């Protein structure tokens, strides 16, 4: 049933994401063409105005994609579980945990797609000669050619095990994608238990949770600072820090998941 739920959610979310993705790619291509035209023609006021307008639209769509990644996932969760659509979703013969997992996976997947689309649009913008020019400019401005220090050399000299660090970092990035959505899910699940102003309450709860997490982060920072007095530990301080952050995120993420599941299962408060 998880597969069926995933398929249903993938389609339902796709209709919201796809127009944005197509818009970004389309305007990236238009921007690229406009840049080529501007480079190869005499200065024209009309062309500059057209280019300016297209650039503004392009930037707005890019901002929409950046924001929409998680927002659409949260909107879909709220709409299909806690509003009138909840009468359909919550009476399907499936586990409530499957409902959460399917929406979570689709949310993370589309967030990753958003980043890929943004990367592709960036590549289209600076492809070919412009890409080379841009890289050259970057090298010169940071003086990389003169100092002969590559990022890799710097990393290897700074930490003991780069491979381990990159692995933890990759897992951490994936965990953060799940975690961010789960915090919203639990906030909306708790907010739904109220009889009035559910959305407002959900947002307040989300802010409260984020503030609590800030305190926890501060605690982690103090702990890592204390660890770095030890010489051996200091050598591994990046890995230890990342591992602690990962553990905290996984634990809190799981708590968010189980609380959300418990509320949907036993405390659902549909109008």
């Amino acid at each position, binding site marked *: 049933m998880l597969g069926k739920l995933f398929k249903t959610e993938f389609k339902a979310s796709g209709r919201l994401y796809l127009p944005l993705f197509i818009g970004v790619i389309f305007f990236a291509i238009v921007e690229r063409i406009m840049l080529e035209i501007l480079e190869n023609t005499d200065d024209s006021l009309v062309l500059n105005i057209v280019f300016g307008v297209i650039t503004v639209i392009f930037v707005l769509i890019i901002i929409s994609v950046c924001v929409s990644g998680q927002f659409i996932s949260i909107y879909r969760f709220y709409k299909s579980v806690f509003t009138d*659509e909840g009468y359909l979703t919550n*009476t399907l013969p499936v586990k409530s945990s499957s409902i959460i997992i399917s929406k979570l996976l689709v949310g993370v997947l589309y967030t990753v797609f958003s980043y890929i689309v943004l990367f592709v649009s960036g590549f289209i913008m600076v492809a070919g000669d412009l890409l080379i020019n841009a890289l050259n400019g970057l090298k010169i401005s940071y003086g990389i050619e003169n100092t002969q220090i590559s990022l890799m050399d710097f990393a290897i000299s700074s930490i003991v095990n780069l491979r381990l660090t990159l692995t933890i970092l990759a897992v951490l990035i994936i965990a953060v994608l799940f975690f961010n959505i789960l915090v919203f899910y639990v906030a909306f699940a708790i907010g739904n238990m109220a009889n009035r102003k559910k959305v407002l309450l959900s947002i307040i709860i989300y802010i409260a949770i984020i503030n609590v997490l800030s305190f926890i982060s501060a605690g982690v920072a103090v702990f890592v600072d204390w660890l770095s007095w030890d010489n051996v530990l200091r050598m591994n301080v990046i890995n230890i820090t990342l591992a602690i952050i990962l553990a905290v995120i996984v634990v809190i993420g799981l708590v968010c998941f189980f609380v959300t599941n418990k509320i949907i299962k036993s405390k*659902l408060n549909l109008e």
Partner: protein
Amino acid sequence: MSEILKCTGLTKKYGSLVALNNLDLSVNKGQIIGLLGPNGSGKTTLIKLIAGLLKQNSGELTVNGEKIGINTKKMVSYLPERTYIPDWMRVIDIIKMFENFYEDFNLEKVKTMLDNLGIKFNQRIKAMSKGTKEKLQLILVMSREAQLYLLDEPIAGVDPAARDYILRTIITNYNPEAAVIISTHLIQDIETVLDDVIMIQNGNLKIHKTVDEIREESGKSVDELFREVFRC
């Protein structure tokens, strides 16, 4: 007749408000039951508990001998008083969804009923009137070969002509081995199709009798009895 629904000491509270108070109830297969009561009497709460949308504070609730869960959701076909079909869908999308999730969904029944009501497969839900959405929901719900149908105000939002069609749909499409529980205020409209009547007030069971018993004992119709019992 075997039992399809059983409540024993069923209690549901919302904070300090008692919506259902120690309710004992039993419903047999092959019956159409009218669940009647004034506003706030606990009808929708009882239906939501059976549908698995709420959890009781105490007491036992079983459908076909099973506690409420995934298995009972497979057996129960529920029509809420809200329109729940997502607006972005077309008729074909929601049909596919029902076909995907409910093993007992009968596609031929849907086709026939949609045809009778002139609803097209590619019609957008967003463009439908509230009444048409309600009819579509009822068609979907009655197209399942379920064991227990829960219909919460199935005729409230539609015109009188459509009401007749809906009632005919309910009578002709439910599995004879199943039971149908209809909650409504429009008693006169449904009285002729009912076998049993359950009246609840303030979460307590007031009357549970057959329609024939009510007529024989009180000499009144169900509608007249309701007005007498719940006179303000």
